């Protein structure tokens, strides 16, 4: 039976990873890390989890070890954040190009400088195009559920891609929350043992990660791109089965009070819960505001997003990183690209908020919605605006 627990999200996440019966956990346990790998190390050391915990000398080595272990056919998990994620990003590209179903939890934190360990999506967007499947959690329960889902999808022989579950650093990773801890037997049912499609095996030798010269590199990238796009039906199927087994339902794009909304906020991650409160408050004040939350970041669910916002006149897209001097933030780029060349499209404004741990409050969302309504009545179009900044 599943049981209701009050637990720090990182600790609960590692309990679920242990239930997933991982074989190898390579990690570099120094700041910025989370209790995810710390608790996994405890579980291995105390004999509760039969796995190899490899203490490497850097995140670059952590991901390199993940690649080797996964190529040998192991179920592999690791976790990182910001600067460490930046260091391992070189190998992240290699892991996905080699189609190794590694699962990683990233506690999203700002990138230096200035040195800042707090939450934003700087690290998430830095590694936007590493070719991993990526989901984004809004609360502790979702972290647990999305992690199980990640293993299931990544290892599916129709997919064979690494998978990142993003969770907001501190706001989720260090928060004690009530969560339903799944039953280990149910987890076993949802997550059959990993059957590699190809693996390093002396009896049946293969070479992984060879040179790809100009005559094949383009084809290799095309194959990777198509594989990532083709993972979506499996992602949906695995969520459907998750709902049947565990009773919680997930979609690539989630909507909240959007049916008759003129103005829609688009968010990703834990600020979505505050945004829901803001929507409720604005609804009470008679404003027709709704919320769309992007859960699946890669492959990007453009169709689902368009369907979710098709009746809106105006969109406020919230980004949690500055695409310094670019046209707009990365989330807004995706939204605008989805609308390009269509006959009708809403007025779109991009707000950059919640950088380096700054709170995004109900008032900030109200300010966005009000500004948007005002600019609809004759304001100047804009690329992006960093909101809640001191002049």
């Amino acid at each position, binding site marked *: 039976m599943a049981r209701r627990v009050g637990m720090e999200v990182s600790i609960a996440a590692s309990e679920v990873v242990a239930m997933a019966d991982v074989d190898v956990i390579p990690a570099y346990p120094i700041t910025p890390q989370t209790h995810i790998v710390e608790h996994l190390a405890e579980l291995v050391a105390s004999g509760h989890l039969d796995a190899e915990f490899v203490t490497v000398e850097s995140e670059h080595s952590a991901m390199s070890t993940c690649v080797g272990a996964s190529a040998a056919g192991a179920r592999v998990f690791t976790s990182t954040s910001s600067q460490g994620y930046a260091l391992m990003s070189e190998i992240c590209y290699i892991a996905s*190009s*080699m*189609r*190794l179903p590694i699962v990683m939890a990233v506690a999203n934190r700002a990138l230096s400088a200035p040195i800042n360990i707090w939450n934003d999506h700087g690290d998430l967007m830095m590694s936007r195009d590493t070719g991993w499947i990526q989901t984004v959690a809004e609360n502790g329960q979702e972290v647990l559920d999305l992690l199980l889902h990640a293993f299931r999808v990544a290892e599916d022989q129709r997919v*064979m891609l690494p998978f990142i579950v993003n969770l907001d650093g501190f706001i989720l990773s260090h928060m004690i929350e009530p969560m339903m801890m799944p039953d280990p037997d149910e987890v076993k049912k949802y997550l059959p043992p990993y059957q590699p*499609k*190809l693996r390093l095996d002396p009896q049946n*030798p*293969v*070479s*992984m*990660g*060879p*040179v*790809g*010269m100009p*005559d*094949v590199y*383009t*084809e*290799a990238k*095309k*194959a990777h791109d*198509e594989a990532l796009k083709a993972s979506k039906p499996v992602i949906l199927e695995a969520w459907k089965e998750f709902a049947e087994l565990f009773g919680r339902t997930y979609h690539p794009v989630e909507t909240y009070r959007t049916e008759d909304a003129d103005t829609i906020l688009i968010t990703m991650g834990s600020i979505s819960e505050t945004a829901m409160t803001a929507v409720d408050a604005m609804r009470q004040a008679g404003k027709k505001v709704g919320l769309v939350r992007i859960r699946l970041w890669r492959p990007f669910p453009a169709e689902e997003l368009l369907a979710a916002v098709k009746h809106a006149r105006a969109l406020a897209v919230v980004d949690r990183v500055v695409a310094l001097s670019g046209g707009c933030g990365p989330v807004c780029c995706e939204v605008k690209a989805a609308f390009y060349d269509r006959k009708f499209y809403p007025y779109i404004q991009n707000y950059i908020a919640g950088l380096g741990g700054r709170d995004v409050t109900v008032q900030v969302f109200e300010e966005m919605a009000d500004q948007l309504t005002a600019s609809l009545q004759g304001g100047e179009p804009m690329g992006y605006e960093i909101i809640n900044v001191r002049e």
Partner: protein
Amino acid sequence: MAKETGSISWKDLELGCTITEPGSSAKLKTGDWRSAYPVTDVDVCIKCGQCYIFCPDMVYSRNEEGYYEQDYYFCKGCAICVRECPVDAIKMFQEGD
């Protein structure tokens, strides 16, 4: 990569470009990079095998008479054999001359 990758569709690539045929690098023609090729003067050659030992691309193999012959399919024309030959039996010739 070992296969004739220049003619393969992206749909036919192995997962992650893995090479599933062991030893297939023997099929990879590296010899078309070269601009000069080594030729051994068997009248000077002392059959010491230094060319065979130093060649980074397995170009040389020993024939029945004990001389070392080049397989130009692999020879990149690096001329390491020329440098290592203790009796100067090997000379480079420009391709196309």
